């Protein structure tokens, strides 16, 4: 019975650790204008770089 309850619990809720691979993908997608600008780009260059990173 406990096993069934645990299974039900897993189905409706979860707390899961994101894999390093997925986290790397997220971070790439989550790159921001400010990150690029801090790296020394102009705003226009940063916009282009941001678009490029989002489309990966």
């Amino acid at each position: 019975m406990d096993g069934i309850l645990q299974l039900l619990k897993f189905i409706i809720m979860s707390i899961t650790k994101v894999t390093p691979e997925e986290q790397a993908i997220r971070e790439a997608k989550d790159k921001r204008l400010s990150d690029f600008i801090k790296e020394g780009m102009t705003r226009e260059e940063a916009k282009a770089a941001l678009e490029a990173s989002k489309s990966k």
Partner: protein
Amino acid sequence: MANNDNKLKAYVRYDGQKKIVPGSLILRQDKPTTGKFVEIMPVDLCCGTTNVCDSCVTLQGVGEYDEELGTYYYGFTLETRSSGANLTGTIHWTTSFSESFSLDADGNDYDFQYDFGDAIPHTVLLCVNNPSQIQDFELGFGPGETVSLNNAIALNGLDEWDSDDMNIYSLDLTGLSSMDELYHCCSVLTHINITGCTNLDDVDLIDNALTEASVDHVLISLDNYGLSNGILDLTGGTNAIPSVAGDAAILSLQGKGWMVFYNS
């Protein structure tokens, strides 16, 4: 969504794409019969004990349909710090279903996810014992949408706040004094309060609908906090043009090495 008359409830209207219609927030006793209105943040949906409510951030979330599983999930992400104590707390997905957690301080993302079973707003309480072990609070990576939140100060100690794309009209981050990065782009955000967020030096609020008062508040607050070499972006969307007072804050910030972008 508190009001002086508890008979009144708050409703927002959803369009055909399940997005909140900007400006549709109304207070009424009964749900409108025309259009798809849903109630948000009912005043009696808190956890029942004042102590728990005071120590938790209250999220109003709407599930997103998962075609593979055939149900509506909602979630968000916490990134832990890379050293120190485990991040511990309890999440109350409903008034009758909660789960405690203890996450390693390994610098990784942890996804929190729950099956709401429908696409109406539900209240979730996130109660963290040691929020200074949160590196990044991400409302946008999980499924579904967060449409409002209360008592953000319960997470004071975190570094980064990210609620990009969430359909939040008003964001009150008062007192989050440790936060240095704030990201909320591309949404219907109209009002924001960063009073006491004295460590902010990277703020991205592009493509929102901020009022002049909110734009000025952000500019003047950041100027008053006195930090140098920060970056602030208020461009795009229908974010208001700063007033004369806001312009003065821009000049002052630029004098301290800030890069400030805004609508003009």
